[in-house]
């Protein structure tokens, strides 16, 4: 405390008092012309220092405002870039979908020419469906996850927020309950689809999603009942009641799931199986 008291009682620089005492001690002596000159020089110096102080204040203020403006500008520019790139990515995705459809129809046309080709065509369709590179439809459930309405309380905010692991858990439980095809907010899941978090956004197949999260799953008629009986199902039902987490499971008669982007395989190669063990004869 003495430090604080010291600080307030000695707010003015000690040197001023000392200088004043020295001055009174020597006040009876008439100042010499040299001393007067030096006093004028220090007066000019005071002006210069004060001007420097003013310049310092102004510089600091201007720099602060300019930095704030620059930050705002940068932010705007970044938002613009994000929007542009997202639009570009969407455009390319559409183009890709069109081209893929073209390739598929050309392949089908070529294959349907022969009986052997038709058999292959059926097999391809089946494999594509399983791999998730083919749009599919069927009955199933839609699980909706959403952040709790009121997450203003910082202590429980994280409990009412949906994270990547929530979506992972629900997807896992749906697959375990017999789901055959799943899409999250229209992003079809494949064996190589990552559900992860970057910053505050949940990415599925590296595309950011915004809440609410609709998880469409095509599966057996009892998918909803089975899913709700799983550990995940009961847990989230519980959290919905306790933390107000958005969680609902609805049966859907007709769900259409889009196809996922075709995974590119660059490095992996099929294991070479001896010809006798090969299940498929080469044409």
């Amino acid at each position: 405390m003495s430090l604080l008291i010291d600080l307030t009682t000695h707010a003015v620089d000690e040197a001023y008092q000392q200088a004043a005492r020295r001055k009174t001690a020597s006040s009876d002596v008439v100042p010499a012309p040299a001393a007067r000159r030096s006093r004028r020089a220090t007066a000019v110096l005071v002006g210069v220092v004060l001007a420097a102080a003013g310049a310092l204040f102004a510089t600091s203020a201007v720099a602060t405002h300019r930095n704030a403006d620059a930050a705002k500008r940068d932010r705007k520019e970044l938002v613009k870039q994000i929007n542009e790139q997202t639009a570009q990515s969407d455009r390319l995705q559409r183009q890709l979908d069109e081209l893929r459809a073209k390739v598929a129809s050309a392949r089908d046309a070529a294959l349907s020419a022969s009986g052997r080709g038709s058999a292959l065509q059926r097999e391809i369709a089946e494999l594509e469906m399983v791999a998730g590179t083919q749009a599919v439809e069927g009955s199933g459930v839609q699980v909706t996850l959403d952040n709790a309405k009121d997450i203003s309380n910082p202590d429980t905010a994280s409990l009412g927020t949906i994270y990547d692991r929530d979506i992972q858990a629900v997807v896992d439980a749906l697959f375990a309950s017999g789901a055959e095809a799943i899409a999250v907010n229209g992003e079809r899941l494949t064996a190589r689809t990552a559900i992860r978090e970057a910053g505050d956004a949940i990415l599925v197949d590296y595309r950011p999603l915004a809440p609410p999260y609709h998880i469409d799953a095509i599966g057996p008629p009892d998918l909803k009942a089975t899913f709700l009986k799983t550990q995940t199902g009961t847990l989230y039902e519980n959290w919905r009641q306790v933390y107000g987490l958005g969680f609902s499971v609805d049966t859907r008669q007709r769900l259409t799931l889009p196809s996922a982007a075709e995974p590119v395989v660059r490095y992996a190669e099929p294991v070479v199986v001896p010809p006798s063990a090969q299940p498929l004869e080469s044409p």
Partner: protein
Amino acid sequence: MIAALALAIGVLLGVVFHPTVPVGLQPYLPIAVVAALDAVFGALRAMLDGIFDDKVFVVSFIANVLVAALIVFLGDQLGVGSQLSTGVVVVLGIRIFSNAAAIRRHLFRA
């Protein structure tokens, strides 16, 4: 009067030319500003107390700004830069406050 004029001229120069502060010196600018404010307020109070001294003001101003910057620099090197800056701001802030209070007592007798 001349002092106020000099201060105004300085502000004007800063606004008109707005010199760019080198990136390396930018962390020291806020602390230098607070130190300068402290020196100016201290000088104003000393003037009202009738003990103002040109030389003391010039020396204390330059020394305060340099020491404040040095403390921040030292803190940055030791990894406690922000904490030391806070300390400097608190100490100088208290001084500015009590000097301002003394100035107020001089001017308004209250």
